[in-house]
């Protein structure tokens, strides 16, 4: 066959496929398209011009990307604080020289100090690790602060990531106030992987520092130096290792969220022009299914006239225009007489995806908006008042609504597609949902901090057990008398976390009338970085909540407790400990509560037996043996 004839045949074949005129039924359907649409075509977002749509998409994507990238980089870029409100000068004097060991003259023997100086000097020369132990007399046992100028003044070689400063205090009565550990990033990473034995860290030196003679206290010095000697050679290996497990975990978590979102955006925003067949008035957006028996179908086929090819269909001209059903009770399903479901609103894929991205961007903004609020210490903590910093539980409506919109839009988007899209959206929801639940669960305040930095308040009697690894603090207070202690809580997650305060009042157990924790404050720091100042004094604390912590950031808090009717200022019986704080916090806009363990075993002297009045009578509590 020649080319000409082939082309002729092809053209003839195509012309033969063309039907006659447009049927009146189609004209009627087309009339209903414009007549039945909402006042603004395509809804609010469909009515936006391309430039606006692109702008909304861009803004949403940028917002989500900024949030996620900022989380990846520990929020340093978006952390905004009112520097004028941050902290006060350190209470401890600065150093005039820079020895490795700074301590009162009679705390250690001179030989031990000289030996420690020599060994730490050797470590510094070999590995660049500047490790110092700073023990200074404190005005009281309720405060502990690092010397001013940390970390710049203590970094003589320009490598602050290898610097260590162990801080301990000596109260006026000679009792040690232990301890703070300030360290550079590389040291912290080494500690996290176990390269620095906990028993050798400053936090574990308290028991030995409390010994009666300088010779026994030298043990603490020797343990500190030995720990540094073991730690320093492992830093090179860690430095070459590059990424830590935390980095990998954080990055994997963010990628697990980011990649599905990008895929969703690419798939959902690609150019598509076909919607599912939308017959106005149908219940599902697709063609209505009519139940027909096989015999009836055969009879209808036998009776039906053969349509003429390439001729105009001869449908009735009087077919009324189809009008979309507007809802209400006008429509009923024929057989059962039940009201029909409202027609499914078929929108373009882009609409659903754009609303999803906008909601996610709003969720991202909600999650970081706390970071933009300046921390303030305008309200001082008052131990005579109960309920300061107590935050009653409340439902987080805005993030729940936003998450609901995201889910609804994704389901609508999936419903408009075929099985592949539905499976994809399902997989996306499972992956992102699981990842986010893990990430959010991980972002909860903890006090199990290797630093174990804490100080007792006035009247607290500190005792050390197990070589300093277990510490006890006993308060002897009268009924209604307050007591305080200071500790740290940390955000270990990869999301910013806003501490809202206490979720109610925690009481001692099993006798809740011995003591309870009634208020919470926080201690501003001299620097906007690591904690260098702990104080259990109410006048040093702010009661302005909430406070937002970036990933990895710590907050020094002051806990205010109050003796109950069974507390005894001169008692010898000791209650079971106050074991935890119920902390209310917010992550991604969602409020939650977690129990944070106390840094030391907190005991309160009690009357035993003790009778208290309760609604409906009296109850007597007594310890076994009383």
């Amino acid at each position, binding site marked *: 066959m020649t080319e000409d004839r082939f082309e002729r045949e*092809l053209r003839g074949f195509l012309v033969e496929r063309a039907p006659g005129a447009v049927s009146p039924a189609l004209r009627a359907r087309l009339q209903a398209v*414009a007549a039945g*649409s909402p006042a603004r*075509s395509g809804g609010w977002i469909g009515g936006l011009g391309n430039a606006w749509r692109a702008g909304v998409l861009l803004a949403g994507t940028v917002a989500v990307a900024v949030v996620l990238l900022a989380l990846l980089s520990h929020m340093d870029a978006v952390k905004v604080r009112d520097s004028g409100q941050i902290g006060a000068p350190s209470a401890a004097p600065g150093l005039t020289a820079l020895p490795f060991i700074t301590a009162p003259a009679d705390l250690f023997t001179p030989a031990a100090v000289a030996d420690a100086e020599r060994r730490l000097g050797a470590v510094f020369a070999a590995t660049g690790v500047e490790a110092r132990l700073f023990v200074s007399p404190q005005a009281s046992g309720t405060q502990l602060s690092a010397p001013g100028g940390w970390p710049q003044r203590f970094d003589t070689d320009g490598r602050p990531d290898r610097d260590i400063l162990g801080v301990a205090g000596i109260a006026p009565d000679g009792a040690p106030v232990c301890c703070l550990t300030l360290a550079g990033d590389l040291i912290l990473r080494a500690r996290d992987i176990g390269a620095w034995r906990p028993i050798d860290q400053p936090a574990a030196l308290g028991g030995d520092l409390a010994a009666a003679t300088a010779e026994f206290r030298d043990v603490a010095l020797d343990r500190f130096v030995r720990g540094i000697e073991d730690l320093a050679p492992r830093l090179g290996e860690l430095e070459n290792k590059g990424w830590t497990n935390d980095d990998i975990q954080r990055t994997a978590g963010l990628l697990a969220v980011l990649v599905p979102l990008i895929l969703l955006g690419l798939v959902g925003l690609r150019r598509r022009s076909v919607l599912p067949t939308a017959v106005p008035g149908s219940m599902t957006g697709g063609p209505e299914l009519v139940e027909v028996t096989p015999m009836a179908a055969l009879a209808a086929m036998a009776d039906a006239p053969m349509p003429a090819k390439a001729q105009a269909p001869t449908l009735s001209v009087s077919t009324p225009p189809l009008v979309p059903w507007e809802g209400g009770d006008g429509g009923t399903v024929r057989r059962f007489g039940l009201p029909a479901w409202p027609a499914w609103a078929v929108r373009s894929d882009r609409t659903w995806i754009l609303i999803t991205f906008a909601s996610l961007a709003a969720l991202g903004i909600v999650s970081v908006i706390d970071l933009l609020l300046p921390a303030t210490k305008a309200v001082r903590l008052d131990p005579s008042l109960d309920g300061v910093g107590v935050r009653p539980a409340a439902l987080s409506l805005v993030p729940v609504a936003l998450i609901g919109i995201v889910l609804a839009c994704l389901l609508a988007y999936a419903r408009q597609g075929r099985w592949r899209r539905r499976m994809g959206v399902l997989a996306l929801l499972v992956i992102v949902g699981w990842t986010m639940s893990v990430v959010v669960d991980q972002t909860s305040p903890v006090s199990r901090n290797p630093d174990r930095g804490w100080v007792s308040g006035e009247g607290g009697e500190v005792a050390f057990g197990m070589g300093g690894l277990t510490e006890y603090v006993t308060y002897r207070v009268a009924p209604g008398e307050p007591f305080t202690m200071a500790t740290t809580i940390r955000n270990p997650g990869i999301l910013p976390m806003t501490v809202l305060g206490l979720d109610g009042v925690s009481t001692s157990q099993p006798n809740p009338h011995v003591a309870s924790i009634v208020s919470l404050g926080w201690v501003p720091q001299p620097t906007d970085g690591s904690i260098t100042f702990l104080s259990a004094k109410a006048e040093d604390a702010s009661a302005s909540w909430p406070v937002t912590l970036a990933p990895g950031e710590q907050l020094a808090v002051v806990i205010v407790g109050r003796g109950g009717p069974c507390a005894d200022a001169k008692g010898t019986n000791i209650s079971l400990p106050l074991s935890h704080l119920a902390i209310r916090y917010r992550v991604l806009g969602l409020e939650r509560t977690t129990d944070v363990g106390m840094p030391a075993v907190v005991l309160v002297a009690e009357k035993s037996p003790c009778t208290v009045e309760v609604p409906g009578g009296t109850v007597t509590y007594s310890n076994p043996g009383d």
Partner: protein
Amino acid sequence: MLASRTVHGTMDDRATAFAALLDRGLETHYRLAAVILGDPTEAEDAVHDAAVVAWRGFAGLRERDRFEAWFARILVNGCRDRLRARRRRPIIVAIPAFGSTDAGLPQERAADAGTDLAIRDQLERAFARLEPEHAVVVALRYYADLSVPQIAARLGIAEGTVKSRLHHALRRLRAAVDRSEEAQR
């Protein structure tokens, strides 16, 4: 002139303008959809769906002079997607009954008619098996009589892509026709 008016207006104005613009090229669009899909009923659905999409985006259409091309692109893309969806279902090709159209013709003309019928049958089958993108390009070139640059502009693809698709589509159609001729011999 309607086509040069600004888009901004009341809802009624917009609906009226949309209906007028749609009606102006409706026959052409409908026939093109039927040629691509090979099914007048499905072509009606395709035109309706394209109208729904076009109406939703009509407010954003700044140049009404370009409505025809814009609507045609929506329609052709819709037809292409319908062909893709159809590939997962059995292909049904209508074959006219033998003897129903050739009765009373001289023997040689009846033989020619039989050959033509066989060629059309093979074209029908081969066209139904074409890739959706290829079928669309063939219909635009040999039914709508658009040039390669016009097809490229209509579909938003490169001219080279159009040529490539045409080449592969024609080669497959031609192979089908040749097989039919050899079988006749």
